[in-house]
């Protein structure tokens, strides 16, 4: 058969490399940076912006930065009473290094800081397996994380039992306060937010009305006023002699505020569930709580994971506002240390703030990336 065919190729021809115009960095640049005159102008402006920002920033943060030192003289120029040459501008990482303990723990007594570190270790050890989908026993893990850990941490951090000295909350500060406020806010706001959202969609007019009033009022005012309310009005509401810890008042304020926002996110999810799901549950004879707990909420919450995580991120950032009712979270401690005479120099505020920004950024960015990961993983393809 094949005799009359002169030549049959038995193997595939190797692909030829693309023409020179179409490959290499030059072609990439032509395509992505200089596609047309307007694009070229944009690119030049872009290069200009990068050149204006990146090299000075790099010089400030790395090249000219002062990494070691014991007081302000290391971070001040000669004219300002320090050792640096005139015109020097660099980050004062020595300040961050010297104050690192305060930034993490506030004024928590030095000898007791192991307790905070222990709580942090337990927190991470329980959080990581909870976040990695492949690790089994999620039920036990959540019980430990959401029920046991708070109780254990409470006794460890406050002390006063089992021979641990009592540490008052005004001594707490730094990242410890930021994380405690956010964690409690998250743990409290999710169930409260779900209840409020269910209440807002309830058929009972009184319940619905109360939930709407609460949610809209809290969402309509700034967090600062809610914190002020918690710090100055709450004591007025209580009978004489009963007083709340200031930290607890801030916790109540932050949790109330976050619950209202969470409620709106959850309501969005509830509204997205088709009516047939509710009716199907009813026709199976499920009670209200069975219907919500087994059929509606699992679907609704899955839909709004990005919104929930966004609320968490917002709350994490908002904890910095407790500085205004004179509590010292990470940002508050950094701010407080600007006025430390031993370290006051033109460079310390920027250095401290950049460090705080980095910490906040790592946490928030991590949360948002994790939410994107979970969203993809939970996407079962049922989206309409």
């Amino acid at each position, binding site marked *: 058969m094949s005799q009359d065919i002169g030549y049959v190729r038995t193997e595939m021809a190797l692909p030829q490399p693309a023409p020179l115009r179409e490959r290499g960095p030059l072609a990439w640049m032509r395509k992505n940076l200089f596609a047309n005159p307007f694009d070229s102008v944009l690119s030049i402006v872009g290069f200009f912006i990068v050149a204006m920002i990146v090299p000075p920033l790099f010089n400030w943060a790395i090249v000219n930065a002062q990494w070691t030192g014991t007081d302000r003289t290391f971070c001040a120029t000669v004219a300002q009473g320090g050792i640096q040459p005139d015109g020097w501008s660099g980050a004062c990482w020595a300040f961050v290094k010297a104050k690192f303990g305060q930034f993490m723990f506030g004024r928590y007594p030095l000898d007791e800081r192991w307790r905070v570190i222990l709580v942090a270790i337990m927190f991470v050890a329980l959080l990581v397996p909870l976040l990695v989908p492949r690790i089994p026993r999620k039920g036990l893990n959540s019980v430990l994380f959401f029920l046991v850990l708070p109780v254990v941490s409470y006794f460890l951090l406050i002390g006063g039992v089992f021979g641990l000295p009592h540490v008052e909350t005004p001594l707490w500060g730094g990242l410890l306060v930021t994380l405690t406020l956010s964690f409690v806010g998250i743990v409290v706001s999710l169930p409260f937010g779900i209840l409020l959202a269910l209440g807002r969609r309830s058929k009972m007019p009184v319940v619905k009305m109360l939930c709407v009033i609460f949610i809209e009022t809290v969402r309509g005012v700034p967090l600062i006023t809610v914190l002020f309310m918690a710090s*100055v009005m709450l004591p007025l509401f209580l009978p004489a002699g009963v007083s709340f810890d200031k930290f607890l008042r801030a916790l109540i304020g932050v949790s109330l505020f976050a619950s209202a926002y969470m409620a709106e996110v959850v309501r969005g999810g509830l509204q997205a569930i088709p009516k047939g799901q509710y009716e199907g549950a009813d026709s199976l004879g499920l009670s209200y709580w069975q219907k919500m707990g087994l059929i509606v909420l699992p679907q609704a919450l899955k839909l709004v994971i990005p919104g929930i995580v966004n609320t968490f991120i917002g709350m994490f950032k908002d904890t910095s506002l407790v500085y205004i009712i004179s509590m010292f979270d990470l940002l508050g401690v950094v701010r407080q240390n600007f006025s430390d005479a031993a370290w006051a120099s033109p460079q310390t505020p920027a250095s401290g703030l950049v460090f705080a920004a980095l910490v906040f950024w790592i946490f928030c960015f991590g949360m*948002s990336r994790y939410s994107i990961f979970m969203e993809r993983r939970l996407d079962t393809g049922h989206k309409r």
Partner: protein
Amino acid sequence: MATQDIPQDVGGGRASLFYDPKVRGIFFQVLVIVALVAFVYWIIGNTVENLKRANIASGFAFLNGRAGFDVSDTLIAFDSDSTYRRALLVGFINTLVVAAAGIVTASILGFLIGIGRLSHNWLIRKICTVYVELFRNIPPLLVIFFWYFGVLSVLPLPKESIELPFGSFLNSRGFYFPKLVWGDGSMLVPVALLLGLAMSWFVARRAKQRQMATGATFPVFWTSLALIVGLPFLALVATGFPLSFDFPQKSTFNLTGGLQIKPEFLSLYLALSFYTAAFIAEIVRAGIRGVSSGQSEASAALGLRSAQALRLVVVPQALRIVIPPLTSQFLNLTKNSSLAIAIGYPDLVAVGGTVLNQTGQAIEIVVIWMVVYLGLSLITSAFMNWFNAKMALVER
């Protein structure tokens, strides 16, 4: 047949009242009301007792008392002899000013960055992404502190001010720029401006009517521009340029003359604008991506140029997606302006805090705050709802 033996139990009245959803609903609601009333009664009782013990008279009469403190930034006349009411009004106006300025800047910046994130240009896209990811993930208070303590307060002292173009100066006491001084007869200029605005509105209306009727277009934009800019200019020429500038002058310790923007306002304004712009950028990006690519392809098929396609086809549709979340960002910016208290810009919350410390009228001050912010929220959302309804898809 076996089925006939099943007892008939269909009458609603026979089931126990306990299982009737209506009765249960009423029972629970009554329970909630009773609990709430009891709780409120308890709180009010405690509050009255606490106030009596602290010797604080409740009510808003204190607003007429003498303030006794000075406010650094005022747009209306205020001194320490003015009343608390006046002080709160000053704070309220300051809140409005910083919120309005922030909203305008954040919108412009946010739109540019949002479009930049969709650019074909790799560099612009990356710069915009870095901007958004950076500012979305740090607290606004930190951004405010950064501008205030990290940037503006390390600027040189007034006698070594940085000179900027147009006779303006930048130093640690703020930003100084020339003040426009209106001379005699300059009242004609705003009148001409108003006239120009009214006329261009009229022209736009007529042009639309004519286009609807005949299809003929009219260069509305250029006509309006000519009217709005040209008429005031003509007014200026007619009155013989009654304008002069009051330039800031360097003296030994300070700058005199010109207008000064204080660092507190500048930090708050810059921080709010930069922070909110990151969120607006994401909203704009989502809005533009929400318009299906078929729309721009169809407009290309109709022969529209890409700028026309963007203006006439894509943006109107994107706006529908953008407006509701944009509203909530504007509200967020207004609420975040209350962070002014952290750097001492006298907004409503900062002034209210001072009044609260002086008088101890905690409940009244917090109520004033809440009413004002709730009112602002309601007005803004009412306006944006109206705008949204105007832009929304009219389905036939």
